[in-house]
């Protein structure tokens, strides 16, 4: 693996000024298939086709780490009858809104979160795991076996391409969890319900968030933590909350989770969705050198408040390649680099993943990435 890229990554994560700006891209499998001109459904099930799509992205766009994220495999979800991940008519794996925990389950969940998930919630998300069904254990075994097989094959493909294209590991290396409030919202109650719950039954929400923390901790931190690894945590709902609700329901357990991850010798890779500018102080107050990718927000302010302490990136919207000239796109990324680079602790990433190929102009995006690779040098 490339010594240069590894060294850049290592310097970045340690808070030292690296040789140049580390670049981590995120394309979906849909975008990769669109670029390669191969069928998405076929790519899901045929490793060769998938590899072809991946390779096309690697060949086309410069990145310092493997540039595609694909962790939702249809063959794993099928035997479970999954309701949280379903394939769309075009073959994209979609996450619909779910209410897997009912309002009357709060007390039980607060009492025994793990037990309630096992007994009540999983069978709602995965109807084929209903303990009343004689086939439930077999469905579980099938999904597990496929998870192992497909996961192994996926990792194999990524390692092979990482060797071929000399990639360093990215920040998303398999470890993953959610902030406890987001977990309760996203996986259990649904976004709509949680907004009402926060106002109608705030005590229960608070207790349920607290009950979720140990689960998230357990999911984030492996038994033998790997020093230098980052745990990916997408942050969904804070920007939609009232500031006082953020302080009460979101921040305490989020903070604790990040501290525990750091105590275990690892760091968090946070994806601050939407606009976190008004929570800049809260991010700055986390342990030093967390990696944070931002979607929207005031870059200048975030650099000033958060950038001295945390490692920041994101903000670049690939959509502009559709609407602006090549020169204007490069000007935009220059502006971003001018603000982000001083003092180090900065990486290049898109503000959101590239979901499909119609959302970008390929040649302009190539020009932007080449510019960053060549010019974002210290």
């Amino acid at each position, binding site marked *: 693996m490339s010594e240069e890229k590894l060294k850049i990554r290592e310097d970045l994560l340690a808070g030292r000024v690296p040789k140049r700006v580390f670049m981590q891209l995120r394309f979906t499998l849909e975008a990769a298939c669109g670029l390669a001109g191969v069928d998405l459904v076929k790519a899901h099930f045929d490793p060769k086709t998938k590899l072809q799509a991946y390779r096309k992205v690697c060949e086309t766009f410069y990145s310092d780490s493997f540039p595609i994220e694909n962790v939702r495999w249809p063959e794993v979800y099928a035997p479970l009858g999954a309701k949280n991940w379903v394939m769309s008519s*075009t073959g994209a794996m*979609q996450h619909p809104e779910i209410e897997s925990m009912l309002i009357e389950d709060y007390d039980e969940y607060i009492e025994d979160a793990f037990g309630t998930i096992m007994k009540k919630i999983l069978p709602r998300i995965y109807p084929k795991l209903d303990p009343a069904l004689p086939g439930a254990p077999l469905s579980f075994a099938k999904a597990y076996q496929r998870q192992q097989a497909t996961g192994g094959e996926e990792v194999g493909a990524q390692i092979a391409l990482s060797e071929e294209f000399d990639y360093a590991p990215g920040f998303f290396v398999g470890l993953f969890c959610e902030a406890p409030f987001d977990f309760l919202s996203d996986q259990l109650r649904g976004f709509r319900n949680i907004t009402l719950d926060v106002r109608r039954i705030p005590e229960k929400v608070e207790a349920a968030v607290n009950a979720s923390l140990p689960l998230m901790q357990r999911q984030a931190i492996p038994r033998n933590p790997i020093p230098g690894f980052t745990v990916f945590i997408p942050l969904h709902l804070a920007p939609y909350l*009232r500031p006082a609700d953020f302080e009460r329901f979101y921040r305490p357990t989020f903070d604790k989770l990040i501290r525990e991850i750091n105590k275990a010798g690892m760091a968090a890779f946070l994806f601050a969705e939407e606009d976190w500018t008004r929570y800049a102080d809260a991010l700055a107050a986390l342990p030093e050198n967390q990696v944070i990718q931002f979607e929207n927000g005031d870059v200048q302010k975030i650099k000033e408040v958060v950038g001295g302490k945390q490692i920041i990136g994101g903000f670049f919207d690939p*959509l502009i390649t559709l609407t602006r000239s090549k020169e204007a796109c490069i000007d935009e990324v220059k502006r971003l680099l001018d603000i982000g680079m001083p003092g180090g602790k900065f990486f290049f990433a898109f503000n959101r993943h590239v979901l499909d190929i*119609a*959302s970008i102009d390929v040649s302009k995006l190539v020009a932007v990435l080449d510019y960053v690779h060549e010019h974002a040098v210290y």
Partner: protein
Amino acid sequence: MIDTAVLKQKLGDLDEDGVQALLDEFAAGTPSAEETQQVVEACQQGMEIVGENFEAGTYFVGDLMYAAQILTAALEQLKPLMSAGGGQAAKGTVVLGTVAGDIHDIGKNIFKALLEAAGFSVIDIGIDQAPSAFVETAKTNGAEIVALSGVLTLSIASMKETIEALAAAGLRDKVKVMIGGNAVSAETCEFIGADYWSKNAAAAVKQGLTYVS
């Protein structure tokens, strides 16, 4: 008859129980259709307060969702008390939906509640809707406004196709096209040829009113 000014303020303050108590009291008094209409209008004005607070930055997205819920429940409760065919005439007709490939609808539903509160008749065609669905619904109902919601980056391409389909059906200069959601901007608005864009549902409703007055 209850005090409509108090009702309006309670909705503006997101006092769900307070609104409920007043409505229960009102319903118990066997009100006339005309009184019911006044109460509906008070709820709508309360929603305007919510919209103004959101625009001013003192309310947040969660507050909008909560307000939309309170308003929807209130209108549901008041519906049986209204006389058939009574009430104000709609200010205009809006066809609203989330565009093809996108299943997000929280923002769309908020915009819908605010539009209805402002007196529009809204035909909500749902999520993941093909261009033809917008075209057909706009045509059949003589809509003045077609409102496209979408938060995914790929929604921009879907919005563009929808506008092209409106043009192909000869409707483009008969309707105003408004777009909203996380991925829209002044640039994308111009790129796809929409008339108006916003990430702020309350501001967008004001713009919508200028299209029908």
